[in-house]
């Protein structure tokens, strides 16, 4: 039994102030009925004896002082059942595909409790994405959160889709699902994703949340939380391996800033709220594996760096929470290289636990480090060559320069549907390294050189 109040005193942006209520809980779900009978949902942001502040998710358009406010006495929950797979929902979780509402088997609070660090399983199952720059040099493991940092106009969506298509754990055929959350992306982009999901049949094992560019901005704050609550249900109740792709985190953070401004909070860096780190963490940290449970959540957040600036608060704070990042480079894109992933600033923090003997191959770490070292040196030398001319470089430097060019052409570059196995990736790596004299391979143990260097191919025993 809940009362309805008609005591709205102020409406300011997405916020509604309500007076003279019974005690209302912090974070409670609120329903506001407009004069025309439309029901909008919101959440309590601040509660006290005198006044309650409500943040309205579906826009405050149409609300007036006469609108009636009902406090539900409960926090926001997501209705869940196995039939949710294959559905397309709005950014606030309502059906968008014309289907019936979800009949819940369970309802879960969307502000997920933190996974107890002591209950977490260490992620170490190698995921083969078929992309050399990921598998070879920035290896992804199950349970990881690896964002794609990109810029406007770059093919990050294609990369994400290729990963979603090709990702697999070798030697396993387990149930897996995709949760896709769109936050403030354009209709066209959404269609691009949907078309690809349909083409590859992924739609049947996907749950899709769409908050498009013209949907209310505040709703975006809800979208990833709904998506991740669904992902946790699929992973830890239904034992599925869930891949969560959400795009674009930049829009999410813009909404966060908008809310902060509406609440007249003291702004932090570039106007973003001081709690943005904690807020982002409550999304990103909902990835992982729990001891004794079969499922897992792997996250692929996509964010566009405003002005390609990696020190902007959004990529910066994200980088401190996520387990590495893949950087999409404009320079490589201009050279016509796909996927234009610049491996130098890219990183996978969990790479070590997923590679080596028993996972990929024993020489993986050494090959990757050696490739990195000379590619980075080659890129530095380009700057030098531009000043003094290639001719003035030493023989060693010329060799490294050539190596860097070949690395981009043969290792980084690959087809949009090319699905390289990890062995193929490592073979390309060795072929490139064999351009250099053996004495330059200082980061590789001799025993691996003897075993895998193309020069010795045939002389060493195959594994």
């Amino acid at each position, binding site marked *: 039994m809940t009362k309805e109040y008609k005591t709205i005193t102020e409406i300011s942006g997405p916020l509604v102030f309500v007076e003279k209520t019974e005690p209302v*809980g*912090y974070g409670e779900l609120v329903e506001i009925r407009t004069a025309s009978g439309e029901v909008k949902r919101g959440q309590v942001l601040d509660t006290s004896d005198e006044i309650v502040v409500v943040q309205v998710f579906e826009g405050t358009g149409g609300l007036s002082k006469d609108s009636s406010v009902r406090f539900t006495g409960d926090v926001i929950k997501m209705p869940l059942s196995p039939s949710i797979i294959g559905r397309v929902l709005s950014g606030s979780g309502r059906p968008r595909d014309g289907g019936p509402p979800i009949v819940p088997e369970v309802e879960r609070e969307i502000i997920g409790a933190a996974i107890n660090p002591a209950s977490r399983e260490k992620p170490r199952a190698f995921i083969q994405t078929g992309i050399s720059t990921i598998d070879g040099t920035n290896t992804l493991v199950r349970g*990881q959160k690896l964002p794609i940092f990109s810029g406007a106009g770059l093919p990050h969506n294609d990369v994400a889709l290729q990963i979603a298509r090709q990702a697999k754990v070798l030697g396993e055929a387990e149930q897996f699902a995709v949760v896709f959350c769109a936050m403030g992306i354009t209709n066209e982009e959404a269609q691009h994703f949907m078309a690809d999901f349909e083409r590859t049949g992924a739609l049947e094992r996907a749950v899709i949340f769409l908050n498009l560019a013209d949907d209310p901005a505040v709703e975006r704050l809800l979208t990833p939380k709904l998506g991740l609550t669904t992902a946790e249900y699929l992973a830890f109740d239904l034992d599925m391996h869930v891949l969560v792709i959400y795009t674009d985190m930049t829009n999410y953070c813009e909404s966060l800033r908008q809310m902060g401004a509406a609440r007249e909070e003291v702004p932090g860096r570039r106007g973003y709220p001081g709690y943005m780190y904690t807020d982002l963490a409550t999304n990103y940290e909902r990835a992982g594996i729990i001891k004794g449970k079969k499922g897992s959540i792997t996250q692929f957040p996509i964010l566009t760096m405003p002005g390609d600036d990696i020190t902007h608060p959004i990529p910066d704070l994200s980088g401190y929470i*996520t387990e590495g990042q893949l950087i999409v480079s404009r320079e490589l894109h201009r050279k016509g290289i796909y996927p234009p992933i610049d491996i130098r600033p890219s990183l996978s923090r*969990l790479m070590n636990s997923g590679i080596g003997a028993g996972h990929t191959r024993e020489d993986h*770490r050494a090959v990757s480090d050696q490739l990195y070292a000379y590619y980075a040196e080659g890129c530095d030398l380009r700057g030098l060559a531009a000043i003094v001319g290639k001719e003035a470089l030493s023989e060693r430097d010329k060799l490294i320069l050539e190596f860097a060019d070949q690395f981009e052409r043969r290792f980084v570059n690959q087809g949009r549907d090319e699905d390289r196995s990890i062995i193929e990736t490592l073979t390309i790596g060795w072929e490139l390294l064999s351009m250099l004299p053996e004495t330059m391979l200082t980061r590789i143990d001799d025993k691996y050189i003897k075993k895998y260097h193309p020069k010795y191919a045939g002389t060493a025993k195959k594994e």
Partner: protein
Amino acid sequence: MEVGRVKRVAGPVVQAVGLKASMYDLVLVGEEGLMSEVIGISGDKHIIQVYEDTSGIKPGEPVKETGGPLVAQLGPGILTQIYDGVQRPLPLLAERSGDFISRGLFVDGVDHKKKWEFQPLVKKGDTVKPGQPIGVVQEQLLIKHKIMVPPKHKGGVVKEIYSGNFTVEETVCVLEDGSQLTMLQKWPVRQARPVVRKLPPTIPLRTGQRVIDGFFPLAKGGTAAIPGGFGTGKTVMQQTLSKWSDVDIVIYVGCGERGNEMADLLHEFPELVDPRTNRPLLERSIVYANTSNMPVAAREASIYTGMTTAEYYRDMGYDVLMTADSTSRWAEAMRELASRLEEMPGEEGYPAYLAARLADFYERAGRAEILAGGEGSVAVVGAVSPPGGDFTEPVTQNTLRIVKVFWALDSRLTQRRHFPSINWLDSYSLYEKDLESWYAENVAPDWNQLKRRAMAILQENAELEEIVMLVGSDALPEDQQLTLEVARMIINFWLAQSAFHPVDTFCPYKKQYDLLKAILTYRDYAFEALHRGVAVDQIKSVPSKDALAKLKMVEDYEPELKKVMDQMKAEFEALK
């Protein structure tokens, strides 16, 4: 105890009325009794930060006082534990509430039921003073836990002392004045535990990392900061330090860090073996894990809880290393709470007391003469995560004003996969001078001199590289080309060290010395040959030089090294 009521809730900050609690007292908010702390008093209102999620808390719910501040429970059983920021053991929380942490759970920091064998160290009629051990418990195979008279207790004459098996709550000693001592102490986390006096840092803390031990050493009881943008290897550095440092106790505070990283750490620690004792490293470790999505107020407290346990083991006479990853997250927690309190922000939104809090914290480190007599030390290594890798931001700057060692992590080195990515030109250690005599005595008489020579070469290298950027290396005179080559050897053969290679991950002093000496011997041969008129390219391509590169990965390197050096000598003699 008074019971007040909630007046307002906004995120983790709650206002309550009707309380008498003092600042920093622990209170329990709401029907569920959420752990909280008083952080402000204004008029009749108490401002309270809640260590747990406040969803659903309503105005009018009760707020109960506990009568004291947040304390750490100190006694046998702390070692090997994994705690959250307010010292609740995480495995116990998992038992109580499952894989996700729910609210309102109260769990003791040390097990109150477990019995420990107490062996007395004093006898009836002895006079005991504060901080003095009255008995000892074998907490781990190699670690004796001394049961001390609490520092604030006035001490006295022992009337009764028992031996046998007791829980931490049972009395093990009665003094003449009637006061009963147990094995459990409670200490307010925000207060430093007392020592007689602080001592100068003259003993190095060995880490087995060449760039640190060689160039930028840390002393026992010293303070160090590792600032670096994300992905520069801070966490790996901290974990490597926890694994290899020659201290008795390691306290790892994961403050606002990643859950998967903590899982990795918790998974790895039990498997790692202490190179000195061949026992699992976990037996000497305590982990505080407050991941970034756990409540922000508990994150703020975790640094103090960790420090209090560190001081407690120092008081037993142990050398302790506390690593905090990362202090920036701690500072951000302060900022977040300050902004919820609508405090006037200082630089970049951080509260104006940021510098004071940082100083307070780092000042709790040090080598000290302890109350019991003898020495103990707490060294602190704080990771700093400057936004955008910009070292001019407030947390880095305020930290640098206090700490004595600065290991600057450099993203350019990371991109080349040069680890540890400590920049050898920007970093510094103010302990170097204090430690020189120790090194000369314990490593080799010429060790300090060798290091200075190597550093001078690196400095010269940096200057030459600028010229190379303009004209290319072939345009340099031959002797400078050789310097570049030697610098490259120091960088690649000596400074670069793989934390993941089973042998290279830990390098003893002797090996650090031998390898560097070998490189500098090459330099001497090389310049000598150059003066004889041998061409640079010939000098650069002596085969024994490249053989040096891999010696760091060889466990029993000495015979090999001797072979290589003999070969080198012969090769240079053959050069014409």
